[in-house]
């Protein structure tokens, strides 16, 4: 690596990758996305709020609690919520319960692959303050130190009703234009990256997973 790029703030270093792999990955810094003119953005936010696509990535025991939402009893489809199997297309990431360090690495990868605007819901006590795994050697205590979170739903585990209430809150935030977690993430990228690299010791991926 030459000296110029080392101090160039607009380029990610991708230190974790071996030298020959760095060419394969993008090293540009992500950019913040600007909302459009006021009323257009309001209209689009309304559409976004009513078409929430979940990333089908169950990160912990909370993923089991999401299943009832799809069934006839709770039926999340009537709120415009649908599961989606790929991070590229989904807009809501639900951290379903405890996140071990190994899972956190995958959470970060998946979160960065989602397209803006993207929203995160932290489900259950564990991603909020550690929950029952607060003193575990391998489970993070606060997910909001690694990715920005829009809505917290407390409980161990929350009932489907409270998850629906959480979605209602998220919709309200989106409609008010306050759910700008993706921009917050990019603005404070260095802080988030420092926190992530503190716990993920074998950082063998690019600094930002496009």
């Amino acid at each position: 690596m030459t000296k110029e790029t080392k101090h160039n703030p607009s380029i990610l270093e991708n230190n974790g990758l071996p030298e020959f792999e760095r060419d394969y990955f993008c090293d540009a810094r992500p950019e913040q996305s600007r909302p459009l003119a006021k009323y257009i953005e309001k209209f689009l936010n309304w559409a976004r709020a009513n078409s929430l696509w979940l990333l089908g990535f169950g990160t912990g025991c909370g993923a089991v609690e999401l299943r009832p939402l799809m069934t006839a009893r709770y039926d999340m489809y009537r709120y415009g919520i649908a599961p989606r199997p790929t991070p590229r297309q989904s807009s809501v990431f639900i951290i379903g319960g405890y996140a071990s360090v190994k899972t956190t690495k995958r959470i970060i990868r998946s979160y960065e692959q989602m397209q803006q605007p993207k929203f995160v819901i932290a489900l259950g006590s564990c991603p909020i303050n550690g929950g029952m795994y607060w003193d575990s050697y391998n489970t993070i205590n606060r997910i909001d130190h690694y990715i920005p979170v829009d809505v917290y739903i407390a409980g161990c585990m929350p009932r489907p009703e409270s998850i629906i209430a959480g979605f209602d809150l998220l919709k309200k935030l989106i409609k008010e234009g306050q759910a700008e977690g993706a921009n917050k993430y990019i603005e404070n990228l260095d802080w988030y990256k420092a926190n992530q690299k503190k716990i993920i010791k074998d950082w063998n991926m690019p600094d930002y997973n496009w």
Partner: protein
Amino acid sequence: MADILRTALYLFISVFVILNYGLLLNGLVRKIVARAHGRVGPPIWQPWLDILKTYAKRSAISHGVMFFLGPIFRLAGGLGTYLFIPAIYGSVMFANLSFSGDLLLVMYFIFFGQLGMALGAGEGGHPNSAIAVGRGLSQMTSFELPFALSVIALAIQYHSLSITEIVAAQQGGILNWTIFTNPLATFAGLFALLGMNMHSPFDIVLAPQEVPIGPPTEMQSSFLGILQTNRAIFLSAKLVLFMNLYLGGATNIFAMMLKTFMLYMLSVVVGVSFPRFRTEQSIRFFLGVPTLLGLAAVIIFML
């Protein structure tokens, strides 16, 4: 010049109507299936919201030139299929460009989009895309056989490949429809329609839980938006084509909507009733009864 402008305007209106009609069908069927499950189901306008949201994504990732072109080829395939079919017989506005192309061109366009999409999805590099593209192309080749035989039977029967003339020959009473004059070819064609609509048991391309959503795995933002747009247009285009070929076409928009809705419900009812085939089962199925029906239809009209 005024002619061209007027045609362009008519085409624009026609595509706009058929796009919204496709989305409406989509939303309606989601609601119906939800009710069959005992759920409330998403609102009927959910497809519009989804499509709007996908276009409103603020960032997009491309994997290369072919990745760009994939969805565009797909949309071109969908538009091409629709634009060379007369949607409503006798209407100037909805006649589209049916005088410039015949049935063979339409069949080509049905195939074209899928090939373009296969290339685009391939450049995305996701393994599920490649698997699903392989599945899709093999299944498409197999349902193309009964469809082609059915079309040949129709061509022999009506001595024409022009869709407008085929529709014209079916006017004047329900008993002139192909479904009554040539039931074998009709059933072969309808089996092919089941495969084309990719509802269960033939949903081996998108196959949830197997190769989750398949080819468009890497598609996002406006790439996916184009695909969603195309899905609506292509769906109604196929339905309109089959209505023209087998159900005597339509002379007004309400007849068109009624007939295409019935055709689509065929796919939906079969879809909610049967579990998914595996790839080789699906191919064997199309090469069995539907192909034999098509062959029989051709032979009967050759005699």
